[in-house]
């Protein structure tokens, strides 16, 4: 037996060495990040340093580009797609009337001309000369058909068709009309859309619609049943840059260039989306099995990509933010002074640095730094300040009790944090929060729950605080901060904010909207609706043999695939 044990010991020791060698690579790179008001986010394009290191497997693929991504659900249909990965395929195979530019504004795509009536209620579109990949031309009828499908009573996709306020939309959804009266076809390439009420978002609601050929999808369509359209989910036909030639669930989607593409035939002749996973997507880039992948931003990963030498790395601010939500109906948290104190008293810079290193910024308003609506004017940065937090709590009437916990009218300052299980942000946040708040004299308890359970509590309003993150639309209009807004599960209400949000939605001039939203963000900032945490970054890494991408937080990479050139 002793021999066996000694052998075992040797193996265990050998293993520990291997494991610790792996861990050593992660040296700390903590620069002085105490000042959180300035942008310290590292972003932008890092060019490849040495193309000669390119693996043969990638170099020999002259006309083929392979993009690695998490497997999509196989719903390559603009009406029903739900995951970002299905979006990528749809973006590569369909077109809209207008499309986003890199800066978040929009330009004409399939639309040749857009005319808006005096009263802003009627939009008249003229189509460019374009063809679907089955050879039929893109016509006004196809646009009408797409809207019919979106507004169908049985439609269970993600597009909220009724919010566009098209005249006759409601009647069609309810089945009392068999046509949408607001969409009028003038001729094959010209049509007009009338809305009952306009907002700043109307051009996008009407224009950013992926046009689907009626001849292909509409063959067996009858109002009330979309089954025949769903049956074609994995065999898309659009007017886009590429056409899908084969799909193997969980493995790959093979696409071929659309030679008749209205912007000109793409230079990439074969495009393949291949399934990869987080644990090996770097290894696949290195071996040349893939050419491109979205990689989780971390110092280790950036270093590994730089070391490969043949990768262009594009680090971009993510269109979204992380926040700690307060329940504004809670008797303690309804007091703005308490919420401000909780923000001052939390070392956000340390938390964000701990999770993302230099690749995220602490934020103070719920808007992306690259948005036109973003402002830093008169925005309180809530720099970490325990003393300030303490005095705010004193002002709010919470005095330190005998046991060190603050109390007011005999009630203890006790808060509960609903923590998401297996969330790296929460794992970093919770210890610091507990420590920081203990210093303030707050009794913070935490319960760990699964994500869905927390979302359930959020809907029911049964929580004190929780952490979550969400995405931003390019437009600042939202229903999170207005009283009784659809996403306002927080109980926040400020009549001033309601008024500004409504004004901003109705205003069409961007400069005037900027001023309106600036005021709104100042209010939201001062009210400490959430503890605004961070805006992180995304990273697209691609083999430098492909050049010509035009990527921004508002313009995902598939939109510029047609202009990408592969080095020969």
């Amino acid at each position, binding site marked *: 037996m002793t021999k066996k044990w000694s052998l075992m010991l040797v193996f265990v020791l050998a293993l520990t060495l291997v494991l610790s060698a792996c861990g050593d690579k992660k040296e700390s790179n903590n620069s002085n990040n105490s000042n959180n008001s300035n942008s310290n986010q590292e972003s932008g394009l890092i060019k490849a340093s040495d193309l000669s290191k390119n693996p043969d497997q990638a170099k020999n693929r002259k006309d083929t580009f392979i993009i690695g991504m998490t497997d999509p659900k*196989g719903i390559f249909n603009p009406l029903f797609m739900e995951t970002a990965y299905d979006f990528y395929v749809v973006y590569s195979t369909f077109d809209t009337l207008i499309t986003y530019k890199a800066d978040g504004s929009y330009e004409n795509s399939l639309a040749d001309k857009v005319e808006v009536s005096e009263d802003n209620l009627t939009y008249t579109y003229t189509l460019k000369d374009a063809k679907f990949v089955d050879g039929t031309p893109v016509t006004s009828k196809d646009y009408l058909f797409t809207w019919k499908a979106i507004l169908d009573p049985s439609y269970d996709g993600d597009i909220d068709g009724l919010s566009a306020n098209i005249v006759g939309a409601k009647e069609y959804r309810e089945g009392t009309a068999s046509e949408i009266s607001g969409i009028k076809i003038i001729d094959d390439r010209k049509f007009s859309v009338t809305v009952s009420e306009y907002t700043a978002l109307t051009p996008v609601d009407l224009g950013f619609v992926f046009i689907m050929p009626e001849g292909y999808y509409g063959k067996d369509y009858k109002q009330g049943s979309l089954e025949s359209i769903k049956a074609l989910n994995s065999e898309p036909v659009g007017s886009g840059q590429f056409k899908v030639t084969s799909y193997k669930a969980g493995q790959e989607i093979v696409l071929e260039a659309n030679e008749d593409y209205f912007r000109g035939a793409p230079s990439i002749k074969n495009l393949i989306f291949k399934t990869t*996973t987080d644990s090996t997507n770097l290894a696949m880039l290195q071996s040349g099995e893939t050419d491109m992948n979205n990689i989780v931003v971390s110092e280790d990963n950036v270093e590994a990509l730089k070391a490969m030498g043949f990768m262009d790395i594009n680090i971009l601010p993510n269109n979204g933010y992380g926040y700690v939500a307060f329940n504004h109906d809670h008797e303690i948290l309804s007091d703005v002074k308490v919420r401000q104190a909780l923000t001052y008293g939390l070392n956000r810079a340390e938390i964000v640095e701990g999770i993302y290193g230099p690749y995220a910024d602490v934020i103070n308003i719920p808007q992306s730094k690259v948005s036109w609506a973003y402002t830093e004017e008169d925005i309180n940065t809530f720099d970490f300040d325990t003393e300030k937090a303490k005095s705010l709590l004193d002002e709010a009437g919470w005095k330190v009790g005998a046991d060190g916990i603050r109390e007011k009218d005999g009630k203890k300052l006790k808060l509960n944090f609903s923590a998401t299980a297996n969330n790296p942000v929460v794992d970093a946040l919770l210890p610091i929060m507990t420590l920081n708040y203990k210093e303030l004299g707050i009794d913070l308890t935490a319960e760990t729950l*699964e994500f869905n359970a927390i979302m359930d509590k959020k809907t029911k309003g049964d929580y004190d605080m929780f952490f979550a993150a969400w995405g931003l639309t390019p437009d600042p209009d939202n229903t999170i901060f207005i009283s009784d807004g659809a996403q306002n599960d927080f109980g926040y209400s400020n009549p001033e904010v309601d008024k500004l949000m409504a004004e901003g939605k109705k205003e069409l001039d961007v400069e005037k909207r900027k001023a309106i939203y600036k005021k709104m963000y100042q209010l939201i900032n001062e009210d400490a609706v959430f503890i605004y945490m961070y805006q992180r970054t995304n990273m697209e890494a691609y083999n430098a043999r492909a050049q010509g991408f035009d990527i921004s937080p508002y313009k995902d990479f598939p939109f510029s695939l047609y202009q990408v050139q592969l080095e020969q």
Partner: protein
Amino acid sequence: MKQYIIRRLLQMIPTLIGISIIIFTISALVPGDYITARDNPNMTAERAAELRSIYGLDKPEYQRYFIWAGNMLVGNFGTSLQHKLPVTEVIGEYVWNSFIIAFFAMILSWTIAVIAGVFSAKFQYSLLDKLITLAVFICMSLPSFFIGLLLIKWFALDLKLLPVGGMTTAGLKGGTWTYIWDVVEHSILPIVVLTMLSIGGLARYFRTSMLEVIRQDYIRTARAKGLKERTVIFKHAFRNAMIPAITLLGFELPGLFGGAMIMEQIFAWPGIGHVYLNSINMRDYPFMLGFTIFLALLTLLGNLLADVLYGIADPRIRLK
């Protein structure tokens, strides 16, 4: 025998009903549904209510159970919310990929485990026995993600012998044989890791079972008759030691189709394990319930199969 099988099959019906009630109740007790799991920041409350009524999620639980169970009775597993496809079709798309690696890993691990078990029992406490035991314990205790990544680093990145992951090379052109060879290349590493994981328990089991049999009187008799040691071990002892293994074989049946979540994640293998896990996280009830029932059915069939085979292999057991 026929009567026995029919009776057992009939007994499965109430069992399955019980199982369906239990898994449906558990899934109904879990907070959240497909709409909350999506957490779409742009979805209005009206739209969410509309979707719930389209999906039938607005009905009371008992009603939902009867609708679901009624559909299952006529073979309609429902439509997966995530894939927008019939559940059976989604299972069909992924399950065979899982089956391929699980099947070959099973054959390999059983073969190796039987050999290792028999020899370490035959030479109990010898150096060989100790080495086998050590190797088996190492295989068993190494975390699969660690050994998987290590093998990828060695064989795919350093030696460039095998691909990193996936089931086929993207954009591969060529005939059926090129395709089959490509799949074989891609499946080597996952099969090796899966084999390593399951070998440990099996080898220990066979060793114990073999040791038990070797001590029986009839083995002593066989030796006393002057039979060759090889005949004693492989004919008299081995066959009897293998009988309890039939039970284990029955339990392998659901495992063949269940998928391996961690393995699929590391090797980007398009199996059903991660689809199943995803359906749980996303509250894709039709798929989650449908696939769980499918696995439960396989488990019951596996049990039946084991009992029947047991009856055939061991004449001491009479099935009535």
